[in-house]
C-alpha cells in the first residue's frame, strides 16, 4: 500500500475536525505501530495550522519633521485559506502567508517616491504571482524547485530592471520578508533593515552602506560613523544598473517573536534599545508602530519613517 493511500485513508475530509482531533491527540499519542517506543508528540502540520490562526500586523509611514515628501513605500500582504479541501498530496495546510516590503526611495524631482513605489509594487506582484498563487492552489515544496530566497531575489531583480529603465535618476532600498510557517525568508538591498525581535533586537539584514562597511572592518567607530560625511552613501541600491546583487536570508522564527521591517528614518533616530522597549511595552502591533514613529519624530524626524511589525503567533 502506498503512503499516499494511507494518508488519504487516514485523513478525514473535514480539515477543522481533523485539526481538532490531532490537537487532542498530542498529549497521548497512540502509536500502534511503534508500541513501546518512546514517542515524542510530532511537531507536525497541527502547529502550522495553529500558527495560521493569527498573524497580526502593524504598519505606519510618516513624512517626518523635515522633508516635504515621503519617499518611502510599504506593502503588507497577509493571506489565509481555511476550508474543507484536502489536496492530492494529502496536505491541506495552507498556513498563513505573509509578505511585507519596506522601500526607501532616493533621487530628486519625485524620482525617489516613484522608484520606491514602483519597486515595491513590482516585487509584490511577482511574489504573489510566483509564490502565493501556486501556494493558494495547493502547490507545496515538491512543486517549487527554486528556493524561496531565489524567487524573492529574482523579484527584486525584476524591480531593479523596472526602476533602472523607467525611473532615471531614481533608486531605492528594498527589504522584503516572506513569512511562511515558522520561517521568514528575506531579500534585501540598501540600508532599510529587518530585525527579529525577541527579548532583544537582532538585525537580520546587513546595510549596504559604505560607512557601515567601514565600521564592520573596525576602521570607524559607530560614533565616528554617525558623523561621517559619507554616512548616507549606499554602495548598492535598486535601480542603479542592469545587474543587482540581492542579499537573501532566512531565519527560524521563535514562538512569540516579532519581525520588524523599517527604513533608516527609524533606526537612524531611535536606538535599538528604545525600539525594543517600545515593542515590548506595546502589545498591539499597530499601536507599537505608531509609537515608533512618534519616537523617531521626537528625535528630530529628519527623514521619512516607515515601520512594519509582524507578530509571530505562539
Amino acid at each position, binding site marked *: 500500500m502506498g503512503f499516499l493511500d494511507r494518508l488519504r485513508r487516514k485523513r478525514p475530509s473535514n480539515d477543522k475536525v481533523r485539526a481538532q482531533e490531532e490537537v487532542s491527540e498530542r498529549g497521548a499519542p497512540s502509536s500502534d505501530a511503534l508500541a513501546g517506543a518512546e514517542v515524542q508528540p510530532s511537531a507536525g502540520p497541527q502547529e502550522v495550522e495553529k500558527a495560521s490562526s493569527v498573524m497580526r500586523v502593524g504598519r505606519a509611514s510618516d513624512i517626518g519633521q523635515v522633508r516635504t515628501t515621503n519617499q518611502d513605500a510599504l506593502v503588507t500582504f497577509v493571506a489565509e485559506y481555511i476550508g474543507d479541501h484536502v489536496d492530492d498530496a494529502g496536505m491541506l495546510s495552507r498556513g498563513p502567508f505573509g509578505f511585507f516590503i519596506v522601500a526607501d526611495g532616493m533621487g*530628486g524631482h519625485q524620482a525617489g517616491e516613484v522608484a520606491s513605489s514602483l519597486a515595491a509594487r513590482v516585487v509584490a506582484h511577482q511574489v504573489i504571482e510566483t509564490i502565493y498563487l501556486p501556494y493558494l492552489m495547493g502547490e507545496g*515544496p515538491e512543486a517549487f524547485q527554486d*528556493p524561496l530566497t531565489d524567487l524573492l531575489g529574482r523579484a527584486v531583480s525584476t524591480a531593479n530592471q523596472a526602476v533602472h529603465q523607467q525611473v532615471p535618476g531614481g533608486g531605492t532600498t528594498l527589504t522584503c520578508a516572506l513569512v*511562511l510557517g515558522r520561517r521568514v525568508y528575506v531579500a534585501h538591498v540598501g540600508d532599510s533593515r529587518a530585525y527579529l525581535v525577541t527579548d532583544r533586537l537582532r538585525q537580520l539584514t546587513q546595510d549596504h552602506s559604505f560607512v557601515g562597511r*567601514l565600521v564592520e*572592518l573596525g576602521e570607524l567607530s559607530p560614533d565616528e560613523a554617525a558623523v561621517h560625511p*559619507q554616512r548616507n552613501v*549606499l554602495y548598492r541600491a535598486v535601480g542603479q544598473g542592469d545587474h543587482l546583487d540581492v542579499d537573501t536570508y532566512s531565519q527560524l522564527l521563535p514562538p512569540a517573536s516579532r519581525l520588524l521591517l523599517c527604513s533608516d528614518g527609524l533606526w537612524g533616530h531611535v536606538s535599538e534599545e528604545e525600539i525594543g522597549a517600545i515593542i515590548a511595552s506595546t502589545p498591539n502591533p499597530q499601536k507599537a508602530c505608531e509609537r515608533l514613529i512618534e519616537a523617531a519624530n521626537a528625535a528630530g524626524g*529628519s527623514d521619512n519613517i516607515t515601520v512594519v511589525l509582524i507578530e509571530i503567533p505562539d
Partner: protein
Amino acid sequence: MKDSLETRHITDESQGGAAPAEGLETRRIGSGSAPASDDKSTRQIAGPPATPPTTAPAAEATRPITPPPTTTPTEGTLPRGTVLQGRYQILGILGMGGMSSVYKARDLRFPEVEKLCAIKEMINLAPDPQIRATMIRNFEREANILATLNHPAVPKVYDYFTEGDRSYLVLEFIEGQDLEEVLSEVPEGEFLPEKQVLEWAIQLCDVLIYLHGHKPQPIVFRDLKPSNIMLDSHGRIRLIDFGIAKVFQSGQKGTMIGTEGYSPPEQYRGSAEPRGDIYALGATLHHLLTKQDPRLEPPFSFQERPVRQANPSVSPEFEAVIMKALEYDAEKRYGSAEEMKHALLGVGRRIGYRRPGAGPAAGVVLTGETDLEASETMALWRFACEDEVRSSPTVADGILYIGSYDHNLYALDAETGEFLWKYATEGGIASSPYVSEGKVLVGSQDRVLYAIHARTGRIEWTCPTQGRIYSSPRVEFNHVFFGSDDHHMYAASLQTGRVAWKVDMGAPIRSSAAIAEGQLFFGCEDGSVASLDIRGEMRWRFRAKRAVTSSPALDQEEGLLFVGSMDWNIYALDARSGWAVWRFRTSGPIVSSPAIHQGVVYVGSADGHLYALDARNGRVLWKYQTEGQVTSSPAYYNGAVYFGGVDGCIYSLDAETGDLRWRVKTGGPVTSSPCVVNEVVYIGSTDRYVYALPA
C-alpha cells in the same frame, strides 16, 4: 590631515591650508546633478564605473542619487575650437569626473605638425576669495611637483595656468587604451593572461618605487585603478590622472561620493601612505585577473573573494602576492613597492615567465609540487580486507566496525588495528555499520539488514528486504530505520528485527536518514527528499531534479536540512515544511553527505572540490580542489575537516581557511567517509585497506 575620501593627491602637505576636503571625488555613473543637502538623512548611492560630468549644483534636492548616465557635455565644458592662452586649441573631451574635465588639445605653437596634448581643467567654485587664492596656490605647487617628475610611466607636464575660476594643467598626450577598456574587451568566460598581468604589475611596482622614493616627500598616488593606467602604443604602462583636482574639492557641499573600490580602508580615515598604493595595486590586479569590478562588490571584500575562486588558472603564488597586498591591516601588506616587486619576480620565476628584454630568467623551474602539499603523515596502522572498502567505519567502545566488498563486516581493535572478528554476509557491504545497545547493524547487497552482537560477532537477528541495501541504518526510539532498493523505508524493532512499518517511497532509497524530534529525513533515487514522522506518516516531500543519494544533515537550532543531489546542487530545506531555503550549484553531481559545524556546511562534489558554505545563505566560504571527484562525506573534528578523494588521497584541511593540513596517498580511490575519534582518523580505501591516521 584630510578627513575624507578625496581621490588622490601628491603629498599630504600639498593640501596646505585649504579648507578640509569634503569627500570622495565623484567617479561614478552620472555623477552630475543634485548635490546632497547637509541633511543627516540625505542618501547617496555610490555608483558603478564610468565617469560622466558634474557641474551645476542643483538646489534643494533631498536625496542625491546617481543620475542616469549621460555623455552630454555640461554647460561648463569648453566647446571644441576654443583656444586657451592663445596656444592650446581644444579638439574634444577625453574624460570627465568630479570637478574636472580632461580635453584633447592641439599645441598651436607647432603649426607645421599636429602636436597633441591633454589638458586637465579644474573648476574652482569656492565662494571665498581667500580660499580661492589658497586653492590656486596649492594647485600651482602640485603642478610644480608633477613637473619635476621624470619617469617613463609618468606623463610629462608641459605647462599650467589659471583663467578665471578655472585652472589648467597641460600634459603629455598618451595614445592608447586604459586598462579598464582593455579589460572590457576580454570575451565573456575568458581572462587576461596571467603573465601579461604579471608584467604590468612589475611595471606598476617600478613606478610606485619611483614615486614613493621621491624627495623630500614620498608621492602617494592614491588612486591607482585600471582606468588610471594607460597602455601606450608601445604596450607600456603609463599612469594618468594624478589627482590634482582634489585641491578644488573643498567647500563643495554635498558633492556626491561613491566608493572607489580600489582604495584601502585607512584612506577613509584620512591616512595616505605608500602602503595605500600597494593595496590599490592589489585591488587593480585582483580586478584585472578576476574581472570582478570592486566598485560593484561590497567594499573591502577582497579577502572573501580570493583570485583563484573566480579564475583558477592564476597560479597560487600570484594569488598569494595579491592577497597580501590586499590585507586590511597596512602592517600586514608589503612594506614597500620594492618588496612587492621582489615577490612578483619570484612569481615570474615559478610560473616560468621571462620579462621582455630581461635576459634569461634565473632558476626558472620550481623544485616540484611536494613542498606545497605538506608532509605526509604516517598511518598508525592499516588493515587489509579481501576486497575494496567503500563502507565507512564506526567506532564504539574501542572497536572499529567496517564493511567490505569481500562480504564481511569486520571488527578491529581501534587502537592497534588487531582483528577481533568478522561476520560474512551474502553480498558486498557498501553501507556503513551503526552501533546501538551492544548491536552492530549493517545492510548488505544481499538485501538483508543484519544485527550482530558487537563483542562476539554472533548474529542476533536479520531483517530481509526485497532490494539491495546501500542506506546505512539509524536508531532512534528503540527502532532501526533504513532504506532499501525495494523502494521502502523500514522501521524495525531494535530488539527483534520485526518490521514495525515500511513506507513505499516509489524509488530506491540509498540515502541514510537523519532523525530529530520524531522526524526522519532522507533522500530517494527519484530526486525527492522526504520527511516522515516516526509512525511513517508523510510530513512533506521536496523534489530535486536528480537522485538524492546523499544523506541529509540537520541543523536543529536553525531548523535547516542540508542535502546534496545528483543534480549538482546542495539544498537547504526548512526542516518543518520542506520549502527550499537556498541552493548552491556545484559543477558536478553530489553524492557526498554534508557535515555541519557552527554555521558552516562542508560537502564534496564530483567536480573535485570540497566546499565550505555559509549555512545561512549557501555562499562559498572556501573551496578546496582535489585531483579527482569527492564522493566521500567530510567529517569535522577539532578545527579540521577530513575526507577522501577519488584521486586516492585522504585529506585534512583547516576548517576555517580550507588550507591543506596534510594528505596521505592510498592505493586506490577513497569513497569511504572518515570517522574521527580520540585524535585518530579511520577510513577505508578501494585499495582494500582500512587506515588509522593521526588527526
